[in-house]
């Protein structure tokens, strides 16, 4: 009984275990599936880097990335410590990169590359090929072994003067005005109001206008602008027609910096627009460059009223007055606002960080070297002086070398200026100053009417003398005569000059007085 019971017991236990296990098999349990992350990425890179505006790329606020990487985790488990590093071969170091600690399944991160370029890039004068290197690192599990991908994308770096009008690729570009000028904010990098060369030119113009403080009032601003315009006209800065393909936006275009316009005394309408806008800005005025199909012109904002002064810079060619250039500018502006147009607010764009590259330092006197002159600076310059030394009695005087000299007799030397001034120095042995004066006055009185208007005692070459001013009427002409009488070393001297009375006699007197001041007695 006990043996049977034992075997039955084993059978019952095994059967029970079997039934229970079968029940357990049919009871569902929760488990976590074993999944892996899977990184997928897409890299976008610009085709051109505009070296003239290289600073904008390093400013994330402007959003002008050079490379954009879209990374998505298409797997079922998170990715860890994702990082993207970049460099532009030859012009930037590896970037520090942003760290994304975790990328969950079905999540995306967008990583952007804003390269800090070395200023060397602005020394490129022609388009140069380069590469953007992209390094992606991540781990498949926390603190796991890093994995790495490296990709290379080609890029062209433009010359420092080359501007790409549009960033829209040809397949997307509709060819409309706004598509062609998609890159218009970057024109802000071609306006250089703080370039010392531009500032000096603007200051010269401002000085020409009487040193107006342009930002003080609308009137002063207009005066200042007019001075700068006049200086540009005077220096024959010319508008040069663009090549036919210029406005198509299909290729990069050469745009001059304002200093280049001054140096070359020429520029296209966009060059001259940037030039004039920069001049105005250097004087504290706000300036815009307006783009319209096939043309560009500057607009200056008056400081008080806020009214706009459109200037037709192509009027430089016809040497138009500033007033005419504005009238023409208003007509152009009216045309512009009828169709598509863009007003480039240079100041705003520059405040956002679209600033010019460092331009090569130039000598302080570069404007003179380039032949830039101010009308005031070209007023009749003081000609070179020559000295006449009389052998006996010994005396000397310096006179302008464009004056003629004559010796009608042994006791007289005459000097004649191109303007008609006559200066006569006579002497006589044994005469005192009164004696020589009587001699001269008698001679003059014989030929005309002599009237003394002024008389006083002075010093000439350290010797007491008499100064007499006459009005002399002869042969229906009125002369002004200024005479000095003195005696020295046994000789009486008369130094006089005369010219026909004019309304400019003050200038002529000044010229003559500066000559008389050089008269010296003795050796």
């Amino acid at each position, binding site marked *: 009984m006990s043996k049977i019971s034992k075997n039955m017991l084993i059978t019952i236990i095994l059967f029970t275990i079997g039934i229970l296990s079968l029940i357990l*098999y049919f009871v569902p349990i929760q488990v976590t599936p074993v999944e892996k992350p899977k990184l997928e990425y897409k890299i976008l890179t610009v085709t051109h880097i505009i070296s003239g505006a290289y600073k904008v790329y390093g400013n994330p606020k402007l959003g002008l990335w050079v490379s954009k990487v879209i990374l998505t985790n298409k797997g079922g488990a998170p990715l860890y410590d994702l990082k993207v590093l970049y460099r532009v071969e030859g012009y930037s170091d590896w970037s520090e990169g942003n760290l994304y600690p975790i990328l*969950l399944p079905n*999540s*995306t991160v967008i990583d952007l590359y804003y390269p800090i370029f070395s200023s060397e890039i602005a020394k490129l004068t022609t388009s140069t090929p380069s590469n953007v290197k992209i390094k992606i690192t991540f781990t498949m599990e926390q603190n796991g072994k890093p994995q790495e991908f490296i990709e290379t994308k080609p890029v062209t770096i433009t010359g420092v003067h080359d501007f790409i009008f549009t960033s829209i690729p040809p397949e*997307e570009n509709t060819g409309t005005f*706004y598509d062609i000028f998609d890159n218009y904010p970057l024109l802000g990098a071609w306006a250089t109001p703080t370039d010392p060369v531009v500032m000096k030119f603007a200051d010269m113009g401002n000085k020409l206008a009487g040193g107006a403080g342009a930002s003080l009032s609308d009137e002063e601003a207009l005066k200042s602008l007019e001075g700068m315009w006049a200086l540009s006209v005077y220096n024959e800065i010319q508008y040069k027609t663009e090549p036919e393909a210029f406005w198509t936006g299909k290729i990069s275009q050469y745009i001059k910096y304002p200093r280049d316009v001054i140096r070359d005394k020429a520029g296209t309408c966009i060059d001259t627009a940037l030039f004039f806008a920069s001049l105005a800005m250097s004087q504290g005025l706000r300036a815009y460059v307006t783009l319209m199909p096939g043309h560009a012109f500057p607009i200056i904002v008056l400081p008080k009223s806020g009214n*706009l002064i459109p200037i037709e810079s192509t009027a430089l060619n016809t040497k138009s007055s500033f007033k005419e250039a504005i009238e023409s500018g208003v007509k152009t*502006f009216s045309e512009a606002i009828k169709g598509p147009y863009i007003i480039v607010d240079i100041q705003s764009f520059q405040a956002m960080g679209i600033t010019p590259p460092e331009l090569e330092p130039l000598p302080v006197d570069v404007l003179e070297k380039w032949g830039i002159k101010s009308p005031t600076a070209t007023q009749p310059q003081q000609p070179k002086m020559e000295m006449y030394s009389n052998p006996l009695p010994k005396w000397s005087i310096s006179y302008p070398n464009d004056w003629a000299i004559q010796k009608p007799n042994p006791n007289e030397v005459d000097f004649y200026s191109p303007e008609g001034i006559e200066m006569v120095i006579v002497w006589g042995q044994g005469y005192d100053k009164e004696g020589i004066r009587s001699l001269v006055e008698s001679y003059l009185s014989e030929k005309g009417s002599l009237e003394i208007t002024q008389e006083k005692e002075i010093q000439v070459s350290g010797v007491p003398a008499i100064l007499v001013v006459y009005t002399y009427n002869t042969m229906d002409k009125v002369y002004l005569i200024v005479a000095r009488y003195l005696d020295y070393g046994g000789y009486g001297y008369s130094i006089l000059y005369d010219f026909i009375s004019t309304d400019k006699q003050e200038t002529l007197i000044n010229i003559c007085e500066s000559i008389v001041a050089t008269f010296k007695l003795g050796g």
Partner: protein
Amino acid sequence: MKQKVCLIIVIVLLALINMPIVSAQVEPPVVYEMDNKVTFSVLENGDAQVKEVISLSAAGFIEFRKQYPMLSMLARLFKPKNIPLQIENLKIDIDETNNKITATYIIKGASINKRDYWELIVASEGEKVTLSAQTGNTLVFTFTGPVSVGFRIITTSTVILPLDAKNIKFDETTNKIRYELPQKAAPMIFTSNIIFLVIAGIAIILAIVNYVLKRKAT
């Protein structure tokens, strides 16, 4: 002679400068205002579903359409090639009658997971953005953009964060929203354990064998 010519030029120029200026001037061009209402619904994976409604005055709408005559150009306004964001599924609807433009799209990776929290950039650092209201997981911002090509955009952005978002903070300095989102456990699946079936099989077979052998022995 040369000097005389120079002198004449000087005199002419000086006379020009001293001339009374009766300059032609023009009024600044009209700047149209664009009322832009944007709703960002942030998803749990960090993407954002966006609806943007731009309203203009009748004159402003005409000017706007002049600048963007084609739908493809308008599409580029929302999704320019060089935009820092990644926009997908863009749909644009133009309501000529009410001078409105409506766009819907998804911004991929709008919010970034920083492991312990999420971060959503509302605007660039330094941009003047005002948080005008915050209720639960919804934040409302207003800002006025600069004048661009004759338009000034006044934007009201409503950001709706995921329902479970907590500890929501807006940093005015960086213009970023920081929030926490409980990380959901990995999805579980229901299954049966084959071991129990094997054990059941073995146990039943042994039970039968034990029973049969015993019967034969007796």
